[in-house]
């Protein structure tokens, strides 16, 4: 294992342990995420009954809602504030004296915090499985590709979060940026309502953004709403976003770091 990988792993582990220190966060994540999932289930059950809407029936909607819950738990439970706070309170000065690539270190920490949401996600999915008995993946291959698409959520979520955190160098505030990001993500990922329910132009707009890969991509692969070639295309697009945002992050940081103005002490 190279030195850089050892540092990555150490940062992932440390970030995971830091989240472990706050066990109530898991319980809260489960209560909030699980609660939202239950509300969504009740709403879709009421809305769909025995019919279908834009190709979704109650059966597929149960699986869709659970997939949305997993994506939301991974993304909303991660440590974005930790990253933003260090820029805003000047601790970035300390980070910049360390012999590690700033972005890579933040990515390792962020992914560690995403991994720490696993207990919440697993408990929520198990509970939902027992309560709602959703259908399995369309095919075993679709199941495997769904897992690949979920794996890509890690770098993708980091890319979007990191860019939004870097905006703090200019705005000097994070809350508004976070709200905007979360609103865009909730809406354009299909987490609130499936993109298929939206008018064509809005769907086109959504697919021009990275957000659909948080719920819609794994859901449509899982449910077999796209064939294998379509699934691979979506995964390629998701990977391309992850890579593109990584390099965009590098570019923005190069400018942002010139804006570091840590006053006093």
């Amino acid at each position, binding site marked *: 294992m190279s030195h850089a990988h050892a540092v990555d792993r*150490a940062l992932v582990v440390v970030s995971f342990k830091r989240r472990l220190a706050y066990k109530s966060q898991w319980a809260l994540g489960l209560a909030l995420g699980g609660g939202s999932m239950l509300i969504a289930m009740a709403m879709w059950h009421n809305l769909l009954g025995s019919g279908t809407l834009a190709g979704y029936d109650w059966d597929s909607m149960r699986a869709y809602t659970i997939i949305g819950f997993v994506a939301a738990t991974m993304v909303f439970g991660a440590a974005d504030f930790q990253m933003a706070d260090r820029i805003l309170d000047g601790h970035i000065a300390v980070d910049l*004296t360390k012999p*590690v690539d700033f972005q890579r270190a933040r990515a390792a920490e962020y992914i560690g915090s995403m991994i720490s949401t696993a207990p919440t996600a697993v408990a929520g999915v198990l509970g939902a499985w027992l309560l709602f008995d959703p259908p399995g993946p369309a095919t075993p291959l679709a199941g495997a590709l769904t897992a690949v698409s979920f794996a890509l959520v890690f770098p993708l979520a980091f890319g979007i979060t990191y860019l939004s955190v870097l905006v703090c160098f200019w705005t000097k505030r994070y809350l508004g940026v976070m709200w905007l990001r979360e609103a865009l993500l909730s809406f354009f990922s299909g987490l609130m309502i499936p993109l298929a329910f939206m008018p064509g132009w809005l769907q086109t707009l959504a697919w021009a953004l990275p957000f659909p890969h948080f719920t819609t991509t794994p859901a449509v692969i899982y449910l077999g709403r796209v064939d294998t070639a379509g699934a691979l295309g979506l995964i390629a697009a998701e990977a391309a976003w992850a890579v593109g945002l990584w390099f965009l992050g590098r570019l923005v940081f190069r400018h942002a770091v010139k804006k570091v103005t840590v006053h*006093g*002490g």
Partner: protein
Amino acid sequence: MPILEARSLTKNFRRPDKASGFKGAVTHLMQRKYKNYTAVNGIDLSIEAGESVAYVGPNGAGKSTTVKLLTGILKPSEGTVRVMGRDPHAERIANAHDIGVLFGQRTQLWWDLPVEESLKLLKHMYGVSDADYRARIARFDALLDLGEFMPALARTLSLGQRMRADLACALIHDPKMVYLDEPTIGLDISVKDRLRAFLREMADDGTTLLLTSHDLADIEEVCERIVVIDKGAIAYDGPIRQLKAHYITTKTVHLFLEGPADVPVLAEKFPDYDWAAGEAPSEVVVTYESNRFTTAEVLGSLTSRLAPRDLSLSEPSIEDVIRRLYAGELTE
């Protein structure tokens, strides 16, 4: 070749120019105005390997900004810095391997983890071998008593413990060049003493040190050279010894007489000295030039002719000199 060399180092910042109150806030929203100010103004600084340099100045003089420029955190607006031949901002990661930094006001410990975990993470970051890590931790433990709080969560440490742990973090990779920005701020006297002893040992071992502090005892005990900065520019750069010899040219005797002191009469009697009234009616303060008169001469003439009840002798401290340098009363 110097280990650190800064030439015409300058840093300008932009600050919002906002009037106070609601009106000021609204006006600033409509019409943003900024003021440029220069935090560091054309500093030339050269430090040889093994030197221990104190970098002092009043609040807002530009000390911390200089440290951030020298460590690569900030990009200079003008001028150059070279640390071991590298540009610390452009070659930040390579530079970071060779330097150790302590910001007294910002911890580098991971707040919600035991101290030991922070140190282990830094061990990975700097690629410190297991054997070196163990040896250094043992040394820090002997000098700083780390053992007692290694398993404690960083957020539960007292300020003194936190600073000791932070110092270990800054030095775990045995850096060649160490920057300490107010390492004793807020510490009690016993922790300060321990920290100073540790820093002195480091300096004696040949580590190059740049220390900023408002506590001049830190400086006198640890450093040989002092750089005084004021309003972003260097006001003095030289050995501490020389600063004292150059500027501390007077000494003071406080005399306590039997009756009330009559200053004009005394001044007439001893025209070579400066006379001033003391705090008590019977107290009088005599100042004399230490290069013209020896203390024995002065005390001899005063005691034989005035027969004071008591007396005390004081010498201006480095603190007085620096206070006068800040006030612009002294020039090089």
